[in-house]
């Protein structure tokens, strides 16, 4: 066990000693700061608005102003749909006695969920290289003539990849929260927020909601990383692994969507990778799918990927 720990330490060392890894974090932090600047300066989100104890009246006034805007500009469907969305949400706040807050660090962190796709990219790059690079550098021979089984070497690489993924997601969350706090201030402790589920609006506490959404995205990233890891182990080519995984990342869910009318499409991995669809208005591509079903499909695929990588890696002649 302590041996495996040393191996994981080695693998993480090799990931973090590379300049390209640090550049990833600099890029990520840069984009978080840039998105904070853009959010504050654009008028798309009113980040200065705050609510007093008389927030119910304030929300009603806001709704009246929004209605007036729609009537003023009747031919603009965009304004109508956006404003109607806000009005509905405001009404939900009033009816259910959920106090709103102005834009704060929590909202900013939730808005930055989209940056997890950047992390997917980084993780695919790291996962696609973690085995293939050893072959490219020629160091695979040095790595495999140690008193350690090949399975343990491969396992340590996979665990290191998972740790890298979790660490990077955590970095995104924490830096977003910190930058958000700096720009917009912190909300009250764990405020209730209004979310849109499949069957309409609901309230949820901010922290668990954020963790759940980030959790689903992390799962998504891990699936792509595992895929890249498998290709990397089988074909020893990081370019192929990165290319294929990125292609699937962009095309996978679209393809699943396009095939949704066939019943078998629910068994496509990318019809199942985004579990957050069960918690927002999107919903799964086929009505009969459940979150349990999707979880099962994901587990089966991931196990197949890992077994394929393991079989090729442990049996192969290293020339």
């Amino acid at each position, binding site marked *: 066990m302590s041996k495996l720990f040393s191996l994981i330490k080695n693998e993480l060392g090799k990931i973090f000693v590379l300049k390209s890894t640090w550049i990833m974090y600099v890029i990520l932090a840069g984009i978080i700061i840039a998105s904070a600047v853009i959010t504050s300066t654009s008028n798309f989100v009113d980040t200065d608005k705050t609510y007093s104890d008389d927030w119910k009246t304030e929300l009603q006034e806001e709704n009246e102003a929004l209605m007036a805007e729609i009537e003023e500009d009747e031919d603009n469907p965009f304004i109508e749909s956006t404003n109607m969305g806000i009005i509905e949400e405001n009404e939900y706040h009033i009816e259910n006695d959920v106090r709103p807050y102005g834009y704060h660090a929590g909202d900013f962190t939730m808005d930055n969920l989209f940056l997890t796709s950047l992390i997917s990219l980084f993780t695919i790059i790291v996962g696609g290289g973690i085995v293939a690079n050893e072959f490219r550098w020629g160091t695979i021979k040095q790595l495999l003539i140690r*008193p350690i089984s090949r399975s343990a070497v491969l396992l340590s690489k996979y665990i290191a990849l998972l740790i890298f993924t979790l660490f990077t997601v955590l970095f995104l969350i924490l830096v977003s929260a910190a930058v958000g706090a700096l720009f917009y201030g912190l909300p009250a402790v764990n405020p209730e927020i209004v979310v849109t589920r499949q069957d309409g609006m609901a309230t949820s506490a901010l922290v668990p909601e954020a963790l759940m959404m980030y959790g689903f995205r992390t799962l998504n990233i891990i699936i792509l990383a595992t895929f890249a890891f498998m290709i990397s182990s089988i074909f020893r080519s990081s370019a192929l692994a990165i290319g294929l995984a990125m292609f699937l990342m962009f095309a996978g869910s679209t393809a699943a969507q396009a095939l949704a009318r066939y019943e078998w499409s629910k068994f496509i991995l990318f019809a199942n990778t985004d579990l957050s669809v069960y918690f927002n208005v999107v919903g799964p591509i086929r009505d009969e799918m459940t979150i349990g079903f999707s979880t099962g499909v994901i587990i089966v695929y991931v196990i197949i990927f890992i077994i394929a990588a393991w079989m090729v890696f442990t049996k192969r002649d290293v020339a």
Partner: protein
Amino acid sequence: MSEAAMKIIDLHKNIGRSHIIKNLNFDIRSGEVFGFIGPNGAGKTTTIRMMVGLLSMTKGDVVIQGHSIKSEYTKAISEVGAIVENPEMYPFMTGLQNLKHFARMSEGVTNERIKEVIDLVGLEKAIKTKVNKYSLGMRQRLGIAQALLHSPSVLILDEPTNGLDPTGIREIRRYIRRLAVEDNVSVIVSSHLLSEIELMCDRIGIIQNGELIATKDLHEKAETNEYIVNLDVYPVEESIDILRKMNGIEILDTSRGIQIKTYKDNIPFLVTTLVRNDIEIYGVNVLQSTLEDQFIEMIGENIIE
């Protein structure tokens, strides 16, 4: 001293339809330096890869200190330190980071031991430099340091003299002799150039087309260590007379300088004698050891197949 540290038993390797390695059988004794000689493409690296478990065997086995590399891989490989082909290290890490990386993969390699191997190969000054700044010679030394970390009883070095200058070759020879004599390590060195490793080996095995065609004990000196020596001396006639009176010297040719055949051990005495007789010596040139002649005879021309 003479029990086998490594046994190569009935080793075969087929890749596709070609038989890369055919029926290798030999032992490496404890504390001996074994030279594994053969032309490029003869199967040296393939054999070494099977010895360390990088390549599967079609038939046969390699037994290291009593443990089969096939069935007791971890136990067998713990006894082995190796450089396979080139001494490839992580280019973006320093020499020390590389050594620590590999040290973590074996049991009980202390920081003192790491320092010890760095001293042994003389890399103290460059150890905190990234490996991508290393010369081939420095990488070769780091490769040896890496192979020695866990104090293996069998050391396998594939073409350790590749890319080294004569000083570097001499240094490597010195480490290897020291390891074999002082620490009783069995060392296997492969090379396609007999002349580069002849001086460090106790025994050599010659491989060609995947078959071991001869093994030779280099300590059986009397018969084998004959050299052809070209003497550029003045005056020639007088020198010939002196040489004729000496034992163990055969004069082959006197048309351009004097070409003689003699044992290596005779050379210093021969030179001293000539000097004492006031012969002016402009050059003593060892053309070829006859061992090398035999080697070339045995393998024919150096054809890559």
